[in-house]
């Protein structure tokens, strides 16, 4: 950008120098930026750079588990899915009983390479079939009759993020059109949201420059609240500028497809590769609410998922960061085993989820659903989603899960 006089510093160090010269925000705001205040009292944070990282992938809308991990050998499958049942020759076999949807070629390879694990039939007691409510249950890790004001990752931040991470980086980054409920916390933590898709680069940089200008232009009624807003916004802008730079300069040999989802994952890889101290990323892929003519739609969604994840994994491997990252999918519910009259499926209950990474134990975990169900009857879950969370919290993020989930769950074997 031209006009360097108005440019914000893009690192904390520059910011401090700026402030010391009296030309930065500190000159007219009596509010010191949060990272200054916090670094003054936070215990020296441990080096974050080589810590483990969780990437959570939301499959919004309710992913059809039975056509994702297909129990092709079970005759019930054909009975329940007379038109939607996928022909065996189009499936990607995992063993003699289960196969991945034909859209999952790249994930099938990851499975064969020992990097993809599948936790089968994950759900919770007394399932709720509303998108809104069931998403909330998954994101807050509540029981189905319990309403929690905070998300499970927000509670993780509360427990694990005493001070701001190194360099003032956010505790969590979401790449989604909505700030995930998972991030809601009791205490304040820096979190950050990026628009979905690949870097929206130039336009956003220009917007940022204008926004900086606005942050620097005191209105006629400048007062405490205005100062507070400016300071909070400055903090976010410093992070965003830093991220923009990282994303704009990112080089990778990995072959990301052109989908927004893959673009989002590319951005996550870029931030991880830049040594960002953030330990939790949240990416959303929508469109899984397949009520009608679902076969192609669903296969395409899975293809997006599969190719995005594979490129992400390849990228991390190339950068030798793959050992640090665990990626996990979730969806608010699976879909009804019986197909509906519109060649689609209605809201259901339990479904498999994927875990991906070089350190995970691949293969099928947990037990498969019992398909011996009546028409329009739902599956009964066999693995509680909170057991999956507890495994991730205890064994990957190194944070005691009972403090976050309010109970102990038996760890699963995928890590």
């Amino acid at each position: 950008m031209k006009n360097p006089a108005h440019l914000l510093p893009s690192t904390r160090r520059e910011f401090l120098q700026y402030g010391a010269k009296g030309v930065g925000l500190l000159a007219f705001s009596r509010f010191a930026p949060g990272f200054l205040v916090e670094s003054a009292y936070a215990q020296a944070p441990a080096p974050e750079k080589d810590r483990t990282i969780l990437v959570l992938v939301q499959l919004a809308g309710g992913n059809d588990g039975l056509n994702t991990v297909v129990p092709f050998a079970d005759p019930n499958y054909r009975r329940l899915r007379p038109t939607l049942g996928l022909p065996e020759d189009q499936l990607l076999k995992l063993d003699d009983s289960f196969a991945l949807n034909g859209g999952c070629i790249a994930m099938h390879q990851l499975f064969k390479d020992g990097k993809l694990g599948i936790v089968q039939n994950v759900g919770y007691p007394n399932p709720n079939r509303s998108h809104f409510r069931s998403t909330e249950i998954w994101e807050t890790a509540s029981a189905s009759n319990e309403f929690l004001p905070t998300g499970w990752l927000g509670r993780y931040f509360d427990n694990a993020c005493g001070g701001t991470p190194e360099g003032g980086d956010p505790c969590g980054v979401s790449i989604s059109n909505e700030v995930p409920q998972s991030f809601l916390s009791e205490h304040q933590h820096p979190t950050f949201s990026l628009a979905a898709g690949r870097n929206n680069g130039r336009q956003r940089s220009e917007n940022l420059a204008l926004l900086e200008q606005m942050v620097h232009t005191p209105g006629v009624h400048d007062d405490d609240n205005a100062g507070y807003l400016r300071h909070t916004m400055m903090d976010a802008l410093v992070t965003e500028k830093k991220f923009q730079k990282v994303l704009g300069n990112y080089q990778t040999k990995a072959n990301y497809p052109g989908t927004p989802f893959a673009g989002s994952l590319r951005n996550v890889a870029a931030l991880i590769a830049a040594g960002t101290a953030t330990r939790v990323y949240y990416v959303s892929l929508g469109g899984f609410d397949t009520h009608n003519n679902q076969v192609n739609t669903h296969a395409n969604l899975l293809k997006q998922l599969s190719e995005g994840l594979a490129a992400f994994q390849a990228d991390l491997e190339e950068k030798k960061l793959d050992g640090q990252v665990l990626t996990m999918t979730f969806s608010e519910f699976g879909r009804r085993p019986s197909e509906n009259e519109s060649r689609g499926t209605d809201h259901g209950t339990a479904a498999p989820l994927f875990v991906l990474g070089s350190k995970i134990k691949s293969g099928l975990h947990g037990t498969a659903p019992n398909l011996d169900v009546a028409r329009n009857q739902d599956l009964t879950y066999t693995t509680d989603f909170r057991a999956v969370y507890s495994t991730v919290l205890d064994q990957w993020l190194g944070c005691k899960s009972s403090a976050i989930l309010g109970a102990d769950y038996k760890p699963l074997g995928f890590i």
Partner: protein
Amino acid sequence: MGQSENKIGATEAWQPLPPAEWDEAAARHLLQRTGFTATPAELARALRDGPAQTVERYFTAMPALPKPRQIADLEADSPELFRRINNGTPEEKRQAGQEAREQSREAQFDLTIKWLQLAGRPENSATEKWLLFLSDVWVVGGEKVRSSAFLYQHLDILRRGALGSAVSLAKAVSRSPAMILYLDLQQSQPKAPNENFARELFELFTLGEGNYTENDIKQAARAFTGYRQREGSFIFAPRQHDTGDKTIFGQTGPFSGDEVIDLVFQQKAAGTFLPKEMARFYLTESPLPAEYTEALGNWWAGEGYDLRKLAVKFFTSRLFFAPAYRAGFIKSPIQFYLGLVQDLQLSVVPLPRQLLGALRSMGQMPFDPPNVRGWVGGRSWINSATLAVRRQVIQALLSPINEGALNGDEQIDLAAAYADGVTNFTLDDARLAEWARLPAAERARSLVRRYVPDLAGTELEREVAAFLERGAQRGPAEAATRAALATLLESPSYQLC
């Protein structure tokens, strides 16, 4: 605290604003504080009419909020659900309980969206913000109330009493089934009076801390024994009512609940309590000087605690327009959202997941404050996460809805709205194109004056113009206009009113 209002005496403070001080900035202040924003049309009319006539017009009558369909369905289904909850096997009870909760929640979303739609119309904004204010005083929490049909009823009680006597309103609210459940009157018995309602009645609804004793609470709790609700109707159970003498605020008698409320409004603090709450909700985070609230309280008590008169007095007063209270107030999430909708001339989108999800993430789900104290407000609305959501809300309103990413039920809701002829949920390209035809400098000036008027005439106008010009060299002027607009709406200035 600024200096200018210190020059005003306590009596003068509540005198009407002198006509000479009525200008565009004053009108904008009035509209933004009583409602959600100041649209050009409302601003022009208010400027013409003057403050008294404008406030009188805004507070003439509360608009009706017809019972939302899902609330009606919930009421119709409730007897059967209650029967199953009360009489079934444990498994059936559990099942019925869950069904009841789910249905109630869905109905609450329906109610909330219908309210946002009502409040979003500029002519209703002042009264609906007033209702929101009253609901932030007379709080009931969704969790404990269980049925959103009771919440609707509670809001209806507030709505019907909103412009009448505060004494009558307090009596009506003490009979609200939602309140009876929320503050445990249902369980209160002569042998063990539950003090929860009596305590909050004094502390959070009418008097404020320091204006009653623990014994006043204990005695008052006895007076409200026998207040019950059954399936959403108030009933008085005489045999559960303690008819004995009670001593409250130094007076002794066999007081009923209503008589306790009459006693409450004989206390000096009853006059100042609501004005203080109004100041906090509408005007400033720092408390008003006591001499001002006392003067207003004395006057208000003399007017029979008429809420409409209080609103008119407050919003037309010199103090309300004092320079110290201009433009430094952080917009609540509801004000931010509904203000945007009005500023961009949009309709409230009937999509609970997106809309209510965003309001919740910004920290303010309508009629569902975090606890009995209501929302803290002010700076507590702003942190890195809530600012990010504000930005996403702006983006969502400035870009077409991605219908492919909607769930099935959302597509149905949207199709129903389209069928009703409501389509303006996001900024339409024609309006953008209209702007885009203006030369960059003129466009910049009109955008800044329209959306961040406190920055009008500053260097920023030139920056925006330069931004628009750079954008036009690269692509369509619409895209640059959209980006400039988004940025202005993200700015600190737009978060303030």
